[in-house]
């Protein structure tokens, strides 16, 4: 059975549709800004969505007073995709998969409603808004959540369980995550520089991204791609430190490309801009024989959007594939990596047929998926 990506949406600092986001990325606009954040009045470089913009959207949504920020952004994103595709979540053959690391984690810090911090509570609120026939499935697997959600959707459709799956992923910037990554010394005070010699760490970003995955050929459009294969693997090495050998990512890629002979036009990597992560990825790509395949990371435009990242980056990459465009790996100037890879230094046109998407995260998890033009 062939499984495809169909309509999509991105809600981010760079816009509230995929097209706005793609144009911004192509024009090298970044959603990252140095700003003060949190009760200590420190400055951080963050990719946050402006509160004014969110407020201006609120009036369009019934019962928005009861919705959390992440619920509202998720509903905005899913609504756009459902409007365009005419897919209905009240159809029994359609499922919502929600990918998130922290969900409504801001509910813990307020007295408002701590029950909202339970991830299934949040996903059910979003599902109920669209009268979902099936209870939404929630996936929380660190930074590979989004890509793994797309792979799970493909598997689930292939098994005959569903025909169409709306894959939505989101996370917000919270004092919870900012303080945590800071305690790890993982935050860069400047806009992040994935794969660059002078990379200093990550920036946190916030976004919601939604992608329809389906076996319904009537839903294929000019921005679709076929999901050829996907796989995950664990490093079994360290819960927070990337493996020096890139073993887990190497194995995820190996399982994804075995028996495939598509020529890979580019790799959209995880590329968080921490020294160890980017080294690990470069080693895994070199070991996979991809030293000459163009590589980019989109973290330089958005920061790390956690549960949204894998979906957001897949959407931008599917759009780039269909437009035969290689996108500059934002923030990159000079290579300084353990493995030999080719980082995309500027936007370029290139005839392509397929791309590889990868992700890696805490807990030693890794995932890869291969997409080709329809």
């Amino acid at each position, binding site marked *: 059975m062939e499984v495809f990506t169909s309509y999509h949406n991105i809600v981010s600092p760079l816009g509230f549709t995929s097209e706005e986001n793609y144009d911004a990325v192509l024009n090298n606009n970044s959603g990252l800004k140095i700003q003060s954040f949190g*009760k*200590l009045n420190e400055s951080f470089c963050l990719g946050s969505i402006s509160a004014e913009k969110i407020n201006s959207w609120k009036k369009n949504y019934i019962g928005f007073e009861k919705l959390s920020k992440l619920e509202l952004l998720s509903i905005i994103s899913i609504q756009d995709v459902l409007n365009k595709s005419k897919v209905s979540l009240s159809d029994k053959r359609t499922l919502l998969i929600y990918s998130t*690391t*922290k*969900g409504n*984690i801001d509910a*813990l*810090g307020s007295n408002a409603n701590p029950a909202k*911090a*339970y*991830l*299934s*509570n949040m*996903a*059910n609120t979003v599902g109920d808004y669209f009268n979902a026939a099936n*209870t939404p*499935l*929630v*996936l*929380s*697997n*660190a930074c590979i959540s989004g890509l*793994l959600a797309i792979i*799970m959707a493909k*598997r*689930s459709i*292939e*098994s005959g*369980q569903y025909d169409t799956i709306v894959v939505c992923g989101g996370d917000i910037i919270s*004092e*919870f995550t900012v*303080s*945590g*990554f*800071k*305690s*790890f*010394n993982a935050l860069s005070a400047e806009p992040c520089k994935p794969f660059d010699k002078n990379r200093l760490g990550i920036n946190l970003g916030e976004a919601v991204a939604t992608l329809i995955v389906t076996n319904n050929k009537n839903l294929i459009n000019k921005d679709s791609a076929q999901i050829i294969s996907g*796989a*995950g*693997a*664990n*490093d*079994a*090495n*360290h*819960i*927070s430190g990337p493996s020096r050998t890139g*073993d*887990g990512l190497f*194995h995820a890629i190996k*399982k994804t490309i075995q028996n495939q002979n598509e020529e890979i036009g580019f790799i959209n990597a995880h590329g968080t801009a921490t020294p160890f992560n980017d080294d690990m990825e470069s080693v895994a790509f070199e070991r996979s024989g991809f030293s000459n395949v163009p590589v980019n990371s989109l973290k330089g435009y958005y920061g790390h959007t956690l549960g949204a990242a894998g979906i957001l980056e897949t959407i931008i990459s599917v759009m780039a594939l269909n437009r035969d465009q290689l996108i500059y790996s934002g923030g990159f100037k000079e290579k300084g990596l353990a493995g030999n890879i080719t980082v995309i230094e500027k936007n370029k046109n290139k005839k392509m047929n397929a791309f590889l998407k990868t992700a890696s*995260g*805490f*807990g*030693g*998890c890794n995932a890869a998926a291969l997409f080709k033009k329809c």
Partner: protein
Amino acid sequence: MEFVITTYCKIKNNAIWCNGQKLFSVKEMPASDFLKEAYKFSEMNYPKFHKMDNLSKLGLIAAEICFKNSDLLKNNDPENTAIILSNHSSSLDTDRIHQNSIANKDRYLPSPAIFVYTLPNIVIGEIAIKYKITGENAFLVSDKFDAETLVNYTQQLLKTNMAGAALCGWINYDGSDYEAFIYLVEIQKDSIKSVNFKALNQTIVNQLYQN
């Protein structure tokens, strides 16, 4: 191909069961004290255990009890063994500790050793490290135990050769409430046949969870 549950373990109400038999129980005590007693009983002797959060400790004890009573690790390639876990409370038990460490401007002390456990799939990572399991992972969150999703996803992995065996189940830790239910799934081969194995399906998984 037939997929079978070869071993299962349950931990709740101050007791540990394996394959339907009660192995260990203690008098009522706080959840974190129970984990210490259960660790001693498991004879795991794994110093890293003491650095883990409660969710990971609970998951590791359940995995240890299963693997002690199983040949899964002997019979299967670690690269081809999946870990699929689920719960209701995600990592909220540890999330609250991190939140408390940043709630007060004058006592603002977030700790990386705690923050790293504020993701539910870290328990998968800890099990993967201890038993060198490098296959597929997924951590799912649902209101209550969801046998349908777990069984369907495991079967999808096994049928498509993305896994040859799996550790699956439910690991929930939330304040004073804790519950673990872990089961091991293998492909039935002549070399591992036993009358005690149970077919992998939703009804049986629900029965094992509830009994």
